[in-house]
């Protein structure tokens, strides 16, 4: 279906090749995962399939790409619209119309399909992704998962033979992401659609894919069965790290496979509790907080206390109120009733009354789009501004950034950094003010495992060494399992669970991390937990 023969790609005004001498073949009805570090050229590779690269972006293409008999060199993306459907990283940014049905009709109208064909295909597509009840809805009112499903449906109405998706689950909660993958699985198995996708959260997709195409840092690529490719790389999901740590014979990719092989440790190893730690004093208190937008209530009577030195994860489905809770704490969402106070006992002060400048000193905030905080043209200037803002000796911020990430270049433009590098820069800037509280909104979106490990180490160090109180809203159960001491679940603006990460994650099957699924019913969430138990038995 897709043939790459000796493909090389170089972008204009660039001296390095993005892809070099790449050859592979993908057959009909296959589901292939493209993986690699951020910035390794995954998105470029995906967009080569329908010719957006280089027709739309410019650049020099060497070699030949044939999709269903058409060469992308001579066919433009528009001509391939009936063969390749592409779903971008941010579906909302690629919608053209404003209601669900109009969006589905857009591609077919462009190709002048007769109205009765359109009607039939729109019905089909709505059923395939389960959006039929929402057909008249305005796109802006859909949830993240629904938008992703709509983006897939508007590709499906064209009856494509190939479906290309760039990080389809990165913005979604675990349940919505399962739904998307189930849809893709059905397309591959029932309709023999060829699916090519890129994704950083391997734990979510690894069980579904037939083969993996790995792009390594030096441009070298390899393609093969998951178990074979995953042996060669460090970018592996927790289940593979588990197989390695236990020295299993076969690197399994599904819960069932690894479960079969790890029966012995499950039955014999004693429980070794996670190392206990004593939380510090109360840092932030929410007292019966109610807040909302217009007549819509987003937080409905939330009461909770966060402590110094404690890392708290905030979880829940899209639209459960996570971002609203964070916004109310940092001061951009005003409260309808209730209070948020900082500090403990008699020294506690109500945050509603204090000036924003003072509040910004107490609370460091990393927004969902870290780039929103940046506007200067080099990393160095941003760091220098942060030194001035926080009244530090010149160079302090840059030094701490280099400590975090030695490879970053001080002269590069913040927009040219990879997601992981940009997050490090913003973290260095925000932490330069030594805030008592650090609040992060969905920090792991678009991060590869390496960048995620760096983030986890930093959070851990800040919390344990400096006693910073950390609150992190995330959909990423694996980072929660690794780093969070406590987990709070929100649903519909209310707190539905609050307890140690171990208790909360084990209680909910949909939000259980991979290791916990393999090791169920034992109370182990991470590879570290399993190893600790194993070593305590020897």
């Amino acid at each position, binding site marked *: 279906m897709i043939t790459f023969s000796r493909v090389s790609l170089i972008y204009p005004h660039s001296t390095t090749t993005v892809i070099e001498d790449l050859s592979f073949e993908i057959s009909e009805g296959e589901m292939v995962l493209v993986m690699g570090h951020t910035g390794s050229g995954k998105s470029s590779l995906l967009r080569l399939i329908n010719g957006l690269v280089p027709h739309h972006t410019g650049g020099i293409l060497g070699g030949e790409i044939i999709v269903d008999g058409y060469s992308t060199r001579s066919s433009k993306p528009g001509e391939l619209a009936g063969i390749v459907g*592409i779903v971008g990283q941010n579906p909302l940014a690629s919608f053209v119309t404003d209601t669900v049905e109009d969006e589905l009709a*857009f591609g077919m109208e*462009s190709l002048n399909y007769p109205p009765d064909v359109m009607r039939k295909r729109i019905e089909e597509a709505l059923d395939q992704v389960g959006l039929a009840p929402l057909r008249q809805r305005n796109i802006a009112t859909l949830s993240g998962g629904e938008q992703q499903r709509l983006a897939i449906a*508007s590709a499906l109405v064209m009856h494509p033979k190939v479906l290309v998706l760039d990080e389809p689950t990165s913005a979604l909660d675990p349940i919505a992401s399962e739904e998307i993958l189930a849809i893709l699985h059905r397309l591959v198995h029932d309709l023999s659609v060829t699916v090519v996708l890129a994704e950083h959260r391997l734990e979510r997709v690894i069980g579904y894919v037939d083969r993996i195409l790995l792009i390594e840092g030096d441009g070298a690529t390899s393609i093969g069965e998951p178990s074979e490719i995953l042996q060669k790389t460090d970018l592996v999901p927790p289940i593979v790290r588990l197989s390695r740590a236990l020295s299993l014979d076969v690197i399994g990719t599904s819960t069932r496979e690894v479960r079969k092989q790890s029966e012995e440790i499950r039955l014999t190893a004693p429980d070794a509790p996670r190392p206990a730690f004593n939380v510090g004093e109360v840092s932030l208190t929410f007292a019966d907080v109610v807040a909302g937008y217009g007549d819509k209530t987003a937080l409905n009577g939330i009461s909770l206390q966060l402590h110094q030195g404690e890392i708290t994860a905030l979880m829940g489905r899209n639209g459960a109120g996570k971002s609203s809770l964070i916004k109310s704490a940092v001061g951009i969402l005003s409260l309808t009733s209730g209070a948020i106070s900082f500090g403990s006992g008699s020294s506690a002060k109500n945050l509603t009354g204090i000036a*924003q400048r003072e509040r910004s000193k107490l609370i460091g905030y990393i927004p969902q789009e870290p780039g929103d905080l940046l506007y200067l043209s080099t990393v160095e200037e941003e760091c220098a501004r942060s030194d001035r803002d926080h009244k530090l000796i010149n160079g302090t911020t840059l030094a701490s950034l280099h400590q975090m990430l030695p490879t970053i270049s001080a002269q590069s433009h913040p927009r040219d950094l990879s997601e992981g590098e940009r997050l490090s820069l913003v973290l260095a800037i925000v932490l330069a003010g030594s805030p008592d509280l650090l609040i992060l909104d969905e920090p792991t979106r678009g991060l590869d495992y390496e960048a995620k490990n760096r983030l986890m180490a930093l959070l851990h160090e800040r919390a344990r060494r400096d006693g910073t109180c950390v609150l992190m809203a995330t959909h990423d159960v694996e980072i929660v399992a690794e780093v969070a001491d406590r987990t709070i679940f929100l649903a519909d603006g209310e707190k539905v669970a609050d307890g140690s990460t171990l208790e909360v994650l084990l209680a909910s099957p949909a939000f259980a991390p991979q290791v916990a699924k393999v090791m169920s019913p034992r109370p182990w969430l991470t590879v570290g937990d399993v190893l600790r138990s194993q070593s305590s038995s020897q």
Partner: protein
Amino acid sequence: MKAFHPLTFWALFSSLTVGVIAADSAIVALSAVGGAALIVKFYKQDGPWRMSFQWSLLAGLVLIAIRALTGILIGVPRIGEVLFTLPRLSLPSWLPGIRIGGPVTWERLSSSLHEGLIIATVIALFGAANSVTSPHKLLRILPSRVYQLGVTLTIATSVFPQLITSISRIRQAQFLRSGAKPRIGQIAIPLLEESLARAVNLAEAMEARGFGQSKSQSRYRPINYAPRDLFWIGFGFLSATAMVAL
């Protein structure tokens, strides 16, 4: 509820506009705005355009204020009851007939306010039409010869509401970084970068979905007139006639 024909409310509000201008009366203008407010309340559409009426009312108020102020400051003197006298600015002799400052009469003030009110009403009626009919729907019924233009405009207009959300998001983030009000550059630079990326993204998505491939385009769900469309159009026409006649 099945949607109205996109032209229905435009026809209604256009007739009302004609009526208001022809009648040139403050009472007629105010009752037209009142009627529009009721229609907007009942038939408001979802989506980013629904606030158009409120915004146009605000714009109208600002306009009345500006019109009154310029009416007081600049203008041809009118005979009548003098309310107060402003110091007069002497202009060079080659600018005859224009006066800045001087005595302000009740007649001068009220005629300025009246003019301002009529213009504000026209704007409010336009805003009301936008609130009840998404401009996107209006563009969809364009004849196919200008359809391409219509789609281009659709895209331009759908980016606009997203731009506003981006502005407030970036402003909040910058505000929280320093605790001080962000300067224009601090918002404009990330915004510009984001808008450019978004425009490229959208163009890419459209191209990948075959936009511009075929010379003629088909329409999903052609839109037809229903009896209640005719009712509202007739209502608009009759009220306009009544306004002109009275």
